[in-house]
């Protein structure tokens, strides 16, 4: 026997789907000879947008597919509003999903695509047309209802896919790298639009991406995954300013890894005053992670080095300074502070706080 999750009313006058609480409890997924998920624990609050970020093969898509019911988990529990959905077939989980690949049904018009989920729920024709129209208006494609998928651009197709996923007012919205097939400009536009719609509908959303900028820009919280489990969960600011591990520090944003020594609540770095440390690490030698914007040119003191390369990034310049054979520092600075390659310089660190990890991690 298969269970069905209770659904919100499709004729709700508010048109807003109630967000559900979602939780992964010690979820493991084993493929032949390979563990894709290893004791995954993650909780999403109702109405929250959590981005799952990680390198290719870290298990983020497997986690999302497991929540959708497209993959069976090997062990553990996945709950939606406290009810275990492991074993519930996909079509009864009441989730909406947007895929990385364009997934519009090619034989149906845009309107028919959006109405598909309502047809499956046996909603009458008039209500279907109304709801589909509302959703197409929400994603800004109200005029394109009679077109076919091949008559739309990639961005428009993903907008329709979003409308199709939302029209049934699912409890959870799953986004599996929905922007990765789009060009950079459309990606940013659609990213902002997804965030606007998600906030408007207060729908609990799991957004899988390997693009850190995308994750930091749209999410309430970001979960960084590595080798099948969560490495750190936090707000984008927390993740950026206080990475818990070396992996997070190096994966999220650009960091300079420099050796230092923790003394009490401070860390001593070569060539700069002692700075407060994030958290309460044990005393002793550590790796400290300093962001490029916290490294600056100084006239005296600091570390001596030679400019190796300079890149113009628009708002800032990024300069690489070779300090010694093992240490290459990256710093971001204003364009008028530009130093040419080969020029000897002195640099110093100016972080308000610095994240550290033990040398072993």
């Amino acid at each position: 026997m298969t269970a069905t999750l209770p659904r919100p009313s499709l004729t709700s006058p508010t048109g807003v789907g109630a967000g559900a609480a979602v939780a992964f409890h010690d979820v493991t997924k084993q493929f032949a000879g390979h563990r894709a998920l290893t004791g995954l624990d993650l909780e999403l609050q109702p109405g929250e947008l959590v981005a799952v970020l990680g390198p290719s093969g870290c298990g983020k898509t497997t986690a999302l597919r497991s929540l959708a019911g497209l993959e069976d988990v090997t062990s553990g529990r996945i709950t939606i509003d406290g009810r275990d959905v492991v074993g519930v077939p996909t079509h009864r989980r009441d989730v909406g999903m947007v895929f990385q690949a364009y997934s519009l049904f090619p034989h149906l018009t845009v309107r028919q695509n959006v109405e598909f989920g309502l047809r499956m729920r046996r909603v009458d024709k008039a209500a279907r047309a109304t709801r589909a129209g509302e959703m197409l208006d929400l994603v800004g494609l109200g005029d394109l209802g009679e077109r076919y998928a091949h008559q739309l651009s990639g961005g428009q197709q993903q907008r329709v896919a979003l409308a199709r996923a939302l029209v049934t007012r699912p409890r959870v919205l799953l986004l599996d790298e929905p922007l990765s097939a789009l060009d950079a400009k459309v990606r940013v536009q659609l990213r902002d639009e997804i965030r606007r719609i998600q906030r408007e509908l207060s729908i609990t959303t799991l957004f899988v991406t390997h693009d850190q900028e995308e994750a930091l820009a749209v999410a309430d919280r970001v979960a960084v995954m590595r080798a099948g489990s969560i490495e750190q969960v936090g707000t984008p600011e927390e993740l950026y300013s206080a990475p818990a591990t070396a992996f997070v520090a190096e994966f999220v944003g650009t960091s300079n890894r420099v050796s230092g020594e923790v003394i009490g609540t401070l860390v001593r770095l070569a060539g700069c005053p002692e700075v407060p440390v994030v958290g309460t690490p044990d005393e002793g030698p550590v790796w400290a992670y300093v962001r490029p914007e916290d490294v600056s040119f100084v006239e005296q003191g600091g570390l001596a080095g030679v400019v190796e390369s300079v890149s113009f990034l628009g708002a800032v310049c990024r300069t690489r300074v070779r300090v010694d054979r093992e240490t290459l520092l990256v710093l971001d600075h204003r364009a008028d502070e530009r130093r040419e390659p080969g020029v000897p310089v002195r640099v110093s660190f100016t972080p308000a706080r610095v994240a550290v990890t033990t040398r072993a991690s």
Partner: protein
Amino acid sequence: MSARTTGAPRSTTAGGAGTVARRTALVVVGALFAVPIAAMVAFSLRSADGTGHDLNHWLAIVDPENERMYRNLVEGVTNSLLLAVVSALLVLVLLVPAMVLVHLRHPRLVRPLEFVCLVPITVPAIVLVVGLAPVYSVVSRVAGSGAWTLALAYGVTVLPYAYRAVQSDLAATDLRTLTEAARTLGSSWPRTMALVVVPSLRRGLLAAAFITVAVVLGEFTIASLLNRVNLQTALVQVSRSDPYAAVILALISLAFAFVLLLVIGRVGALGAARPIPTRKALS
């Protein structure tokens, strides 16, 4: 300042030679098809005394007075049409779901399935019949010796053609994503098959069905050696007493196959105007 393009000038001589070669090949190949068909048409229009041309042999086919003479032929046509329908249904009901299942759930079995489906093309019909004869003695006892039972053998002989037609569509469609999208939208597997898979593979399914019909209408060896009557065996039989009728029926069946191929091409062209997402395009 003038711009100048560099590189070797385009060779119009080579292009012209290529066009001539293509047209020559087209004419030769066209003649290979057209000459025998034209000869058949001319033969079928020859008057009884051999001195002129008329439509008498064509009219004789539909003359009710000749019904007895052509009864065997009518039976052959009827049986062949029945066999074509049953064989096409067998292919669509058994082969297509198996291919979709393997494609979506057991991709490792794609190669073995392909091998199994292509094997019949390597087995001569005569060898196939040697193996089928004892099978059909059992089939006759269980299901009778109705003409439709030949469809079981024809289902095997058309496998390679039907497999290729469906496989090409499967390979060009991101069916996995489409079916997963349908399921997340609340569609059960049967509804997903009916509302998403079948329409997405429409071209391949139609091509498989039409090719099956064309192959079945042209099949002679198995029916003859298993002592069944179909269009081809009836044609051979009729040709002994009335060669004109045999040639006319052969022309009609050729025209039918030609129309089928045109329909396949037309359906394919319609599908090409409405491209479906491919894995390659999305990667």
